[in-house]
């Protein structure tokens, strides 16, 4: 099998993940999208490892660690989401605004809009 196939699949998977991260507002769904991205990484690594006939199996080793990292991230992430949910009853990242930049009175024009706290706040959504 040519290496292009898994590589393209991985790229697509990664793109789906990126889309999810950008489009989803629920923290847990964002987390799942990140998992997709990480799995795209794994797919890439394993495919390349096999294709390259890497004698050190660097790709596979890295994959193992990526799996572990992903698991740890999920564990920590869910814990944080739970904690936030307990306190706020929402995990919508758009509605977590307590820490947003306070709107200064009469902000001088020309200064950049405070990303993360502007009225539309799109810039903060990548989180």
């Amino acid at each position, binding site marked *: 099998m040519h290496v292009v196939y898994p590589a393209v699949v991985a790229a697509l998977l990664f793109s789906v993940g990126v889309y999810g991260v950008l489009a989803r507002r629920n923290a847990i769904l964002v987390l799942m999208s990140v998992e997709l991205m990480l799995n795209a990484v794994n797919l890439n690594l394993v495919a390349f490892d096999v294709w390259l006939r890497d004698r050190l199996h660097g790709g596979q080793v890295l994959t193992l660690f990526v799996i572990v990292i992903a698991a*740890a991230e999920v564990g920590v992430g869910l*814990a944080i989401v739970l904690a936030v949910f307990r306190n706020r009853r929402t995990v919508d990242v758009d509605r977590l605004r307590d820490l947003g930049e306070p709107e200064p009175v009469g902000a001088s024009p020309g200064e950049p809009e405070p990303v993360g706290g502007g009225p539309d706040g799109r810039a903060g959504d990548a989180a």
Partner: protein
Amino acid sequence: MDGYFGSYAVVGALLLIGVGIFAGAMTANRLLRPHRPTPEKLLTYECGVDPVGEGWAQSHVRYYVFAYLYVVFAVDAVFLFPWATVFAAPGFGVATLVEMFVFLGFIALGIVYAWRKNVLGWT
């Protein structure tokens, strides 16, 4: 049918067989069974009384801690397998074993901690 993909092709074939069995059974079932739905029949079953509230009631997440423990430890176990297959090979030896004990020690530490903190009990 040899080699890496060959092996998994066999697995895939068996998977298809399994799905086929399921599909076949359900098809046979469709031909044999009666089909007379009534609203009462399709009602969610709660010991015979009318169901209260939604089925997907929010429930306590006391299992979360276990889920987390599992994720941590099971994933740690991922490292055990590659290690297990080679650690006795020539060239490896006591040092490799000691390393794994260190690794297991950290896992054990986690369990001891969880146990002491009463995480494993029922809250």
